[in-house]
């Protein structure tokens, strides 16, 4: 199977998306808001350039974040890949055509993301990631749930809210881009209302 190629425009979009996700993540963390919103760039790439570009943006974004500011994020590279792939797939079937569809798509993306991330969190990091989700996992463990279920439910809960908001924000960003720029990405036709 031949992999799709990325043109110069897509490469620059991916690079910008990686930077956006890293600095937005940092800003949200500084504001002490109990969300991540660190996939806005990936979702935007998914709408503009499709699943392959978004999967590359997701995997590379975590790899680069891991090499610079969050070294323990490196094992989560498959999670970034999965987020991009799912977001691009949903964009292809029109999952980002309206704001409410974008929110539903975001929430749907949270499900496979959790399925991929939970085994990594539990088996590699002992159920702890250093984020606010740990409090929810701790609580569920304290009330008698098993570690894997606690981490799974805590992450799914946060993921559904976080990714649906991310979907909404990415929808707003992509639809406010200059027409000259957005129309140069033919894939974006799948996300126009």
């Amino acid at each position, binding site marked *: 199977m031949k992999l799709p*190629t*990325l043109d*110069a*425009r897509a*490469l*620059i*979009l*991916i*690079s*910008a998306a*990686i*930077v*956006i996700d*890293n*600095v*937005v993540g*940092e*800003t*949200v963390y*500084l*504001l*002490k*808001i109990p969300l991540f919103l660190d996939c*806005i760039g990936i979702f*935007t790439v998914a709408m503009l350039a499709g699943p392959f570009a978004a999967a*590359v943006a997701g995997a*590379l*974004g975590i*790899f*680069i974040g*891991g*090499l*610079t500011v969050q*070294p*323990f994020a*490196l*094992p989560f590279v498959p999670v970034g890949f999965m987020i991009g792939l799912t977001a691009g797939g949903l964009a292809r079937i029109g999952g980002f055509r309206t704001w409410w569809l974008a929110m539903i798509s975001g929430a749907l993306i949270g499900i496979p993301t959790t399925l991929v991330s939970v085994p990594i969190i539990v088996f*590699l*990091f*002992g*159920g*702890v990631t*250093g984020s606010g989700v*740990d409090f929810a*996992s*701790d609580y569920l*463990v*304290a009330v*008698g749930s098993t*570690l894997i279920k606690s981490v799974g439910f805590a992450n799914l809960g946060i993921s559904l809210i976080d990714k649906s908001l991310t979907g909404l*924000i990415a929808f707003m*960003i992509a639809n406010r*881009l200059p027409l*000259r*720029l957005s129309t*140069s990405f033919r894939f974006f036709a799948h996300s126009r209302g």
Partner: protein
Amino acid sequence: MDRQRAQAARTLLFVTAAGPLHALNPLTKLMAFLWTVSAAIVLPPTLTLALVVAGVVLAYVAGVGGVVPAKLVATIVPLAAALALMHGFLIVRPDEVPLGPLHVSPAGFRYAYSVVARIAAMLTASLLFVTTTHPGDVLASLDAAGVSPAVGYLIASPLLLLEPFSKRTRAIRDAQRARGMNLTGTWKARVRALPALLVPLVTLALSDLDHRAMVLESRAFGGEKRRTVLDAPPDSRGQSRFRRIVGALAVVQLAVPLLWH
């Protein structure tokens, strides 16, 4: 060019020094880093902790001793506390003993210790890589190794853009604060502040996308499968052999226990 590099170096984790690690090819350091990640997953905690100690000693030898241990401690202490709480106190294990109103599990603490050692080893290796390797050198070494220009660009471009954008983010934050925006108030105030911080940031990142694409295309980016590098980081046959051995070892040491189990 040197001035630009020095300016960028001040904003990255990279530390300008003339240590032995700085002289190594970035790909050699990257491979050593990947080996450490793989080793940290499979080695017993005592050996993993030995990797951390070796990494910290290496940091002092490499002239980055002022950065690596401080960053390591700042990251690992909260994680260690969270792990100790979860595994030492919250998860019910057969060996737990009462301690006042609480129940503690020695096995839980041992497990938490093994995870902390694993994360610390990965963190130390990663910090050693980023403090002794300039992103520009990563790009040059990937080009010199014959990696596709697109892959080299995708790895190096965000690394080079990340710090300038973080600086711009801080500038936007300061500007909004100067206009009276409350970034430390109630959670409602903080949520309301979010669009005012994010919109300029995202617009800034995407605004010159068209222009940058034109620049790349006008320079025939990707026209050749392999780019010629004028200032490739030093490399040697010994380092190349080391990379191959360490790369293979990283895969084997991870695969064998997995297949064994």
